[in-house]
């Protein structure tokens, strides 16, 4: 099993994820150096350059690396959204809502930083969000957008599971997707407390990357430059 990278330089010594499952998690010293977490604060995403020059396509890559980049893109989006929400909290935000949205922001930052470290040199650049259609001073706008993002995240991870070839990555996706589902349920409970809203179906959705990226596209600047064609399952 190999994780092939089509368009980026493959630097095996910088990859956390060895293609060999037995050596998964082992890294050379230089890889560890690459993995050192930069001091990234909650608002950092906004200061990251777009990373997409006009000629640059952001290639998610292929194989398991491609799926991890795909997840990284979604986590970037979520982290940026909640960071913005908590930087300018809507006026009527209750303490319960404040606590939940703060927690979710922090979880999404953890997810984002995790993928960034995991991908190392293979990570796509920081994406720039486009939130101009979201009214951050309006509770309904914020919470319904949050619900959209969380449900999208759940269906994205559920759909991506079968595209992964590494059981270790699958486990990591599983560890994250249930937290996204908890987020969704909490947000849905804020919108319609103690109703049937927290879990709309006995089985959650499972979406393929194309559909997820189409839905996420309007919230990402220059989203058309994201190249998902090399992801597994693409024709």
């Amino acid at each position, binding site marked *: 099993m190999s994780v092939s990278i089509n368009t980026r330089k493959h630097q095996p010594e910088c990859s956390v994820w060895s293609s060999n499952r037995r050596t998964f998690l082992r890294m050379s010293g230089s890889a560890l150096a690459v993995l050192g977490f930069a001091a990234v604060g909650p608002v950092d995403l906004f200061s990251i350059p777009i990373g997409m020059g006009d000629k640059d396509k952001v290639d998610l890559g292929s194989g398991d690396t491609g799926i991890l980049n795909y997840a990284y893109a979604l986590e970037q989006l979520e982290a940026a959204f909640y960071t913005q929400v908590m930087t300018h909290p809507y006026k009527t935000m209750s303490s319960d809502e404040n606590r939940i949205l703060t927690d979710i922001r*922090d979880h999404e930052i953890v997810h984002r930083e995790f993928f960034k470290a995991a991908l190392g040199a293979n990570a796509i650049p920081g994406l720039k969000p486009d939130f101009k259609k979201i009214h951050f001073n309006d509770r309904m706008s914020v919470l319904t957008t949050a619900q959209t993002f969380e449900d999208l995240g759940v269906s994205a991870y559920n759909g991506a599971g079968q595209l992964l070839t590494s059981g270790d990555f699958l*486990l990591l996706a599983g560890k994250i997707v249930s937290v996204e589902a908890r987020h969704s349920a909490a947000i849905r409970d804020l919108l319609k407390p103690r109703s049937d809203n927290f879990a709309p179906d006995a089985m959650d959705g499972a979406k393929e990357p194309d559909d997820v990226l189409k839905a996420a596209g309007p919230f990402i600047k220059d989203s058309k430059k994201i190249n998902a064609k090399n992801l597994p399952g693409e024709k």
Partner: protein
Amino acid sequence: MTNESILAQLDPELQSRLTPRRDLFAKAIGMGVKYASVPIAVAVLSNSVFGADLPQDITDVLNFALTLEYLEDAHYKAGLGTKMIPDSDRKVFETISKHESDHVKTLKSVLGGSAVAAPNLDPTAGGAFPDALSNYQTYLALSQAFEDTGVRAYEGQAGNLMSNKKLLTVALQIHSVEARHACEIRRIRQEKGWITGSSRGTLPAATQAIYDGEDNTMQGGKDLAGLPGVPASAITEAFDEPLTKEQVLAIVKPFIKS
């Protein structure tokens, strides 16, 4: 992605919210449109989809999941049969109960003749929770315990389903719903919707095994502890951790008589 068709194949009753397929399936096997005919239609169809001869390791995983779903299904049916659930929370439990019944039906339909029978259950776990079905707080605590266990149990088994992409996806689609249930019940209990460290919160000490190991900060070989910009609590909350089959069975064993 053939998500819709998987659903239809597995459980037309579920799918019927989107399309009137229930009738189609029932008609197809000449049994009219009665609700009661649906499980039979599902069984017939799922056998043709997955084959009667699923490998033993897959059957084992699905029967393990089915056992947990039987337990949950019985727990919610029993609770809804009492008057202890306040009206304000009843919709939540009706919703969860419906889902668990659907999960049982789905897994049974996939397993066909290989499905294990529903076990005889003891809601008091051998007397450890004598008021399980009369004290709402105890009932809530057990509900949270079952749901958080279910999340971790499915997580531990996903890798064992990799050889069958359709079934892996089905398991993932159930897994995330268990997490939704867990969050909602935790919120009713005034707990965070997510698990902080290995804390069982206000649950009784007997449930600690459900939360052991949730304080893991090593993800993919990187220790996330000390990640700047976030509180330490967020690092463990951001990941649910798997439990092995043995760990899960040890947790639920007191509730299973035979």
